[in-house]
């Protein structure tokens, strides 16, 4: 199911991300689509990647276009050459990238003992290595302009002891490690790097989580509900904006207050 349109308007020129050039991976998914739409509402020009769900990609595109420029890029992030093509497309269209949101991720429920190397490799290509490659390529123009924001969408499985596929949890742990180390390395160039540890969101990877685990999550969540994608998107937009000047290398939990 695709994410629905978000119903809020902005005053022209007053957005958090006015004229920022933003690249979001996985823009056809629930959280990715909301990030694109909320960022566009906040004045960003939004480029996003999508891989399998053309219907939802088109929906994201039309939602973004309602606010401003949009660039939809079909790409398989498992393909190592994809990153250069993606970044090249955005730079060619808009001259550079100000904000990168590494949101794309996949998951599958496989017990640890049955995981084979190919499955781990494939998941890491999407969840970690594509983020690394895109970050490296995007950082070039950010370093030149001495300004940039990178937001990585992680998960509470990356740092908490909760049920979840081991390779998925590993990938999120890796993404958070990358966030902290990069923040240190890129901070001096005006580039702030942060991550959001997302709880369970409607329209996110929720479908890969068995119902009984979802119920357990709700029990542990102080708000007793799943997150709405736009709630994660609002946080992304703040971290990606120039109003964020001192949050760097942080993993911010957006999980409605669940048991640590």
């Amino acid at each position, binding site marked *: 199911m695709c994410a629905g349109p978000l119903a809020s308007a902005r005053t022209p020129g007053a957005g958090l991300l006015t004229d920022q050039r933003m690249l979001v991976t996985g823009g056809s998914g629930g959280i990715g689509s909301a990030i694109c739409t909320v960022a566009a509402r906040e004045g960003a020009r939004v480029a996003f990647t999508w891989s*399998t769900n053309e219907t939802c990609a088109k929906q994201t595109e039309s939602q973004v276009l309602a606010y401003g420029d949009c660039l939809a890029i079909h790409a398989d992030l498992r393909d190592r050459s994809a990153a250069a093509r993606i970044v090249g497309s955005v730079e060619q269209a808009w001259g550079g990238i100000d904000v990168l949101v590494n949101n794309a991720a996949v998951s*599958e429920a496989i017990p640890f*003992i*049955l995981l084979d190397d190919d499955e781990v490799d494939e998941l890491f290509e999407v969840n970690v290595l594509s983020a690394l490659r895109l970050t490296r390529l995007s950082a070039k123009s950010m370093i030149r302009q001495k300004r940039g924001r990178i937001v990585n969408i992680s998960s509470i499985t990356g740092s908490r002891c909760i049920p979840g596929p081991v390779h998925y949890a590993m990938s999120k742990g890796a993404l958070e490690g990358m966030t902290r180390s990069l923040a240190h390395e890129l901070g001096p160039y005006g580039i702030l790097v942060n991550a959001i540890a997302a709880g369970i969101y409607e329209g996110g990877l929720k*479908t*890969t989580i068995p119902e*009984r685990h979802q119920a357990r999550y709700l029990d542990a969540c102080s708000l007793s509900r799943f997150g709405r994608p736009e709630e994660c998107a609002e946080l992304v937009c703040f971290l990606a904006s120039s109003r964020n000047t001192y949050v760097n290398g942080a993993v911010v939990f957006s999980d409605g207050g669940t048991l640590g």
Partner: protein
Amino acid sequence: MEAHWGEESVISTQSAASECCAPRPDRQRAEAFFSYTRSICPTCRDVIDAHIVFRDGRVLMQKKCPKHGAFETEVSSDAQYYVESLGYTKPGTLPLRFDTRVAHGCPLDCGLCEDHLQHTCSPILEINDVCDLTCPVCIVRNQQGYSMSLESFQHAVDKLIEAEGELPILLLSGGEPTLHPRFFEFCDYVLRGPHAGKVRRLLISSHGRKIANNPRFAERFKQSGAYLSLQLDSLRPGVYDKLRGVELLDMKLQCLDKVKELDIPTVLVPTISKGDNCAELGALIELGLGLDQVSSIVFQPMAHTGDGGDGFHTNPAGHRLTMPEVHQLIEEQTGWLRREHFHPVPCSHPSCYTATYLFRLRDGRYVPLPEFVDVRQYLDAMTNQAILRTDDKLERMLLDAITELWSATKVGEDSQLVLHSLKDFLKQTFNSRNPLTPVEIERRTELQSKAIFIHSFMDPFDLDVARLKKCCTHYVMPDGRLMPGCSYNNLYRQSDPRFFPKAQARTPAPVLISESEILDA
């Protein structure tokens, strides 16, 4: 003596009863006493004492009616199995409400009385008693006059949800429920009405004629979201003529074609009569396993009650199929399912329900879960549920099974196949690249696994209150009361004013708990 109850099962008439109790010259009884219970006289239906005894490796019920003499009925062909099966017991689940007091003793306080030991897993709601067949094996007594009103149906469902909260299944029966003029409105009320989501599966007990012969009805049935619980006794010509009063084989096959064409989720329900179709268990299992639409097969050994009891066998003795006999027949006829694969479903009495769950391998074959899971966990996962649900216990059991198989020092070809098949299933079911809705997940789980149940109903000969007390198959009365299936069929049905308006009310009448008392509680 009522001749139609079968003289062989009556071991003595009233006068002969005293002779039977006279000491034999060697003073040695032929049977060993095992337990005491209560039953009813097959003739007058009075509640009488009964003994469960062992003789020649078999289990018998012996009882004596002061008016109609002594009766002896085989309740199990295998004493060892019978004793062992009694160990498969788990604490029951309380219903959210009881409706009757303990006043006269079981089975005269139905229901459910405060002494009943189990909640409702499998409620049956009879929405009519109109049927276009007059099956000689029918366990009810259709009078062709009753059709439940929508208001009455809604009230009964409301009460049922009040008593149970949520239900794994609800079975609409009759009569032939598909002949009810407001049938689809009933389905809508259960699945999309105020209790939407509370009943996980709505099953319709049907002979299948309307599905087979009426394409528009079949389409609507598919759209309704209900499961078809299809009576399918045989795959050979000649059998239906005897069991159902008319040859139905072509119609049944046509119905199965429609099930496949429209992808109607289906449960196959063969009634098994000794000497008539008991050689077809293997074939029926293979048929069910070969159809993606079939989630389970429920074998029902014939019970001599209702119209079937009145006339099908002049003498039920020798025609009874007990639980271990069915297991044995399945073993003999399939060659790969073994009797030890079947375990009592812990929610009911071990003599009432046994089951095995099967898992589909990569190569299309099925393997019984007890082959590779811990049996204790398996029974826990089955506890108090009529269907295997994807809950924590099942997940723990499967994960443990995977770990055990994987870590075994000697891994056979079959264990590798089981492991890979389990992995395929998990990977395809919970994968972000192909997200599924909860309903799609449940359907996929059904495609990957199937269940075989044996559900043994009781008749006036083998009725045992120890089994009744643990019964989880309950008829839903229009006022919301719940009647254990076999007490209703043998004691209450014939005085139910819905079907027999002129019948006298049963005495002594169960003592109802008032609504205000229920609220106070």
